[in-house]
């Protein structure tokens, strides 16, 4: 068995961590701009208008206890790649206990400072500068919900990322992902127009190569113990600055998946935990 572990350890080097050092650099420059609603991150601010109701309503429909309480009361949510806390704060206001993690310390600092002015949020949200792998060991099956919004198009290794999500999620827990499809259309609109022409997204934020088609994401999810419940396309209107849902997933899309309740077989789960924590050691 120990031989088995040694063999597995070797292929895992920094390049297999889900955190990509080049990506980090891009966000460093804009770490203090998160909370300017009209600034570089305005599209993310307005995305809250559809992603928060999506998360809220999905979770409400799965639970049976909403009368006079906050919609997300009693839920522990992990916001992976929380940035400045744009999504953590609304989720906290709706009653959830939120843990926001981001590999960039400057982002965490911004997020911490912003929540500190609101006594209610300051208690409900905890931020930590960390990668997903680094918290796996101490957070096995801890969270009811994981939210990874506009994150998977920045990670180095999607498979590892999804495996780690599964580790920290309780059985039957929900995983919400929003990301960008890899299509000709998303190249033209998502990179050329959005970044270079209209400046909706800061230039260089996205790399088309790392966009994830929904089929690929679904496949990875299903083969890692998740059951995909919803896939829905999203559309940004630059004139009105607002998002809406649409049938086609050729640009942006959102996914809701649920971790299966049946525990995986013993050997595979041990392998997964080692994968995740081994990566953390070398990251």
């Amino acid at each position, binding site marked *: 068995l120990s031989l088995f572990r040694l063999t597995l350890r070797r292929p895992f080097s920094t390049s297999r961590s889900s955190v990509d050092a080049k990506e980090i650099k891009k966000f460093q420059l804009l770490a203090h701009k998160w909370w300017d609603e009209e*600034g570089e991150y305005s599209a993310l601010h307005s995305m809250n208008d559809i992603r928060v109701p999506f998360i809220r309503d999905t979770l409400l429909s799965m639970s049976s206890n909403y009368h006079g309480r906050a919609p997300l009361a009693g839920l522990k949510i992990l916001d992976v790649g929380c940035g400045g806390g744009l999504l953590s704060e609304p989720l906290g206001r709706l009653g959830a206990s939120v843990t926001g993690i981001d590999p960039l310390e400057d982002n965490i600092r911004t997020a911490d400072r912003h929540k500190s002015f609101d006594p209610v949020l300051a208690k409900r949200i905890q931020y930590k500068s960390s990668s997903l792998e680094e918290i796996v060991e101490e957070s096995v099956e801890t969270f009811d919900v994981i939210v990874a919004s506009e994150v998977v198009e920045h990670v180095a290794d999607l498979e590892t990322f999804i495996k780690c999500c599964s580790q920290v999620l309780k059985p039957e827990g929900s995983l919400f992902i929003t990301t960008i499809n890899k299509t000709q259309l998303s190249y033209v609109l998502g990179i050329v127009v959005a970044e270079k022409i209209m400046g909706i997204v800061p230039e260089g934020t996205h790399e088309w190569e790392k966009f994830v088609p929904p089929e690929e994401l679904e496949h990875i999810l299903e083969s890692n113990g998740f059951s995909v419940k919803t896939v829905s396309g999203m559309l940004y209107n630059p004139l009105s600055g607002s998002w809406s849902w649409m049938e086609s997933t050729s640009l942006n899309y959102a996914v809701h998946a649920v971790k299966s309740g049946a525990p995986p077989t013993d050997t595979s789960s041990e392998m997964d935990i080692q994968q995740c924590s081994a990566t953390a050691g070398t990251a």
Partner: protein
Amino acid sequence: GQLYSLIVGHDIHFHDKKIALLEAGPRKEYDHMPDSYSNRVSSISPGSATLLSSFGAWDHVCSLRLKPFRRMQVWDACSEAMIIFEKDDLDDMGYIVENDVIMSALTKQLDAVADRVEVFYRSRAVGYTWPLSSHSCDTSPWVQIELADGRRLQTKLLIGADGHNSVVRKEAEIKNIEHQYDQSAVVATLHLSEATDNNVAWQRFLPTGPIALLPLSDTASSLVWSTSHEHASELLAMDEESFVDSINSAFWSNINHSDFIDTAGAMFRSAISLLKPSGTAVRQLPPSVAKVDPESRAMFPLGMGHATEYVHHRVALIGDAAHRIHPLAGQGVNLGFGDIACLVHHLSAAAFNGSDLGSLKHLLKFETDRQRHNVSLIAATDVLKRLYSTRLAPLVLLRTWGLQATNALPPVKVRI
């Protein structure tokens, strides 16, 4: 301010929010009303009544005192033209309620949500510190308020409900378009010569301004007479008998008619009755006044106002702080209630989305909704006021025919 706090206090989406209400006056609550009527009354539309009943305040109003009215007759002093509003079914068109009654009902209901709404009676804000809209992370992004007694409050959203001379509006540097009418309104509580059903609201447009009689009970009515400042002072100064005579004469006298206008009006009326037989109605006579309550005469100046913006980052204006209107249409209070219902609707949706309540995005939606609604009403009221302030024949003819036509046309009337 009280009404807003009340509705928000009751809304389920605000269950964990804290609301502070700064009230300049003392606490006012009545278990039963004094025998005499207060001279400040409001005309409450059915929509506003529904709003008040949605959180239990209307029951208190009903248990104190109010007068429903079924019909409204509006006519011109310079011609025979008139327009009558009434509902086909036996529903009430509206209610005349003393302002004190409304305040007392709201106060009672505020007690019911005391865990969420804290009322600071006899308090006054002396200073406001506004957040910078771009978040420089060192200073608090909330609004800081300093009270006269030295206490400090901070809030995510400041609502200015402090009347047409709003301090909040001035401090937020929101420009206000305003115009003083050369008119004052004289109010009084009147006693009728004989008891009657008194379920009609009367308004006659005199060249000097509209005079209105609003029913309070079978024997009492409230007077709202908009007229020039000089005339208003005279009315206040004269003895009670002369005052009563002036009122009766204003409603009954035909001194402003001219043969020309009468003939033209009569011609138009027969034309209408050919086209639309039911389109002319019988003019009823208003009740005559016998007495005025001794201490009840008062006057206050009239003006029009409209704030160029209703909202800024973390600030919203409602009611008279946002807009001021001539009383001739009896809409001032209802406009304010409409503001409140709209603001609560948008804030409730924002709270359900976990948004920061002071965020400009949803505040702008409130502003757009209400400005669209309010501006046209305020402008129309202003035009009516000016149109009816003259004896010039062409304008009198215009408004005579206009009024007669409007009376005959159901779609237009229903809209009003």
